């Protein structure tokens, strides 16, 4: 009986290690992209349970050119630096804002022009950044929007007028809180904001016309990994030339925002 159980467990574990989402790496030919899987339209899970999105499809196209195997590794956003430094992932490719992090990573050329915006309830009487005085504003932990609001040279003085800057882990929770009224506004990237508002499709949310700032997305590599960065960067430009880049941008509704020359 005991032996039976043990061999069952053994078999189970074996299968699992092969299948598991925490799977094994170690293959030189793998290109491991770390991304936030709760960040549509850049990276998310589709109806079939597959990871997809604008960034991941670009990565897939590059892997096809280079003959690499793409490994899509969802990461916890707070741990992105640990994952990159320890070599668990080759790059961070996830609607990743360059501004404010210029010296922290080896960057590709910027490929998306992005703004940080404020989303509010359509029924709330908030029409400009000045109306946010005394309000509770939600922002994702370790996000670009947070660093904009904390930077004295950018929107720190605005953030000081808020009643509270409420940090949260993911956008779904933030929108639930906005809907419930426990936060008055959310600061976030415009692309993500558009996706969230469109897919909720209930006319409850609007983006303020005044933006917090303008910034750019790039692919972040470890500082000592410029060789891989250069390869991927050159491939990215090839995708732009052959039209793949613009086709994908259109597919994900980002045509107005892409900026790769």
């Amino acid at each position, binding site marked *: 009986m005991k032996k039976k159980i043990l061999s069952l467990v053994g078999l*189970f574990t074996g299968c*699992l290690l092969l*299948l598991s989402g925490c799977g094994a*790496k170690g293959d030189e030919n793998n290109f491991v992209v770390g991304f936030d899987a709760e*960040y549509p339209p850049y990276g*998310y899970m589709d109806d079939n349970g597959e990871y997809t999105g604008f960034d991941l499809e670009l990565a897939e196209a590059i892997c096809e050119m280079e003959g690499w195997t793409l490994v899509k590794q969802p990461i916890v956003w707070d741990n992105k630096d640990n994952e990159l430094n320890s070599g668990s992932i080759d790059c961070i490719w996830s609607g990743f804002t360059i501004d404010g992090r210029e010296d922290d990573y080896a960057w590709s050329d910027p490929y998306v022009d992005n703004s940080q915006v404020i989303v509010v309830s359509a029924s709330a009487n908030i029409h400009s950044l000045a109306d946010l005085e005394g309000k509770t504003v939600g922002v994702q932990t370790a996000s670009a929007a947070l660093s904009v609001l904390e930077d004295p040279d950018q929107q720190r003085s605005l953030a000081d007028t808020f009643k509270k800057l409420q940090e949260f882990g993911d956008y779904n929770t933030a929108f*639930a809180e906005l809907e419930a009224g426990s936060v008055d506004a959310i600061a976030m990237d415009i692309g993500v904001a558009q996706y969230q508002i469109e897919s909720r499709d209930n006319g409850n949310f609007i983006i303020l016309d005044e933006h917090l700032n303008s910034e750019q997305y790039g692919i972040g590599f470890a500082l000592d990994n410029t060789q891989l960065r250069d390869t991927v960067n050159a491939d990215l430009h090839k995708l732009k030339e052959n039209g793949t880049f613009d086709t994908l941008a259109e597919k994900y509704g980002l045509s107005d925002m892409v900026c790769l020359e």
Partner: protein
Amino acid sequence: MSFQVILSQLASGMLLTISIFVLTLLFSMPLGFFVAFGRMANNKVIRFLTQLYISVMRGTPLMLQLMVVYFFPWYLFHISLGSFWRFPAIILGFTINYAAYFAEIYRSGIEAIPKGQYEAAKLLGYTKAQTFLRIILPQVIKIILPAVTNEVITLVKDTSLAYTLSCIEMFSVAKQIAAAETSMLPFAVAALFYYLFNLLVSLGMNRLEKKMSYY
């Protein structure tokens, strides 16, 4: 998105959740015995070290311990283990944490047995090993079962902490589907899964308790 689609997507995460659960129990329950014996050892050094181990494991968050286990090879020795280390690190982290709790549960059971039974066994010519295995242990198991059930049920829910190391177990999948669909329904399905899983665990443990109530 229908209930069935959500369920089928969650299935891959469930497999991972269940395997974290099974492997953690498999390793931590026996390890807990060694820790319990260390905790009750006559040797002062061993006793002190196990006491320190238990107090650190119980005194710091499991989430933090998981991060330490996964990232220490790089930050301490600059060894890059890559993604390969992810799953083993999770199992190791859970195991050393739960072993500490199990050790204290075992100790509570072992120390509940009156001294007189050891003396009686000695008088009847039992060796130390025989005394423990044939007389003490069966009673200990009976005493500790409710406390062990508590811990096992906690483990089912704690598996969601594996998300810290970017292991996409069931709760992480639920969060990802919720993000892509901008819906809260996946969380309801996740809650149902945890509840049914724990219902099975407690039913199983109840049966075991009944089986053990032979005196």
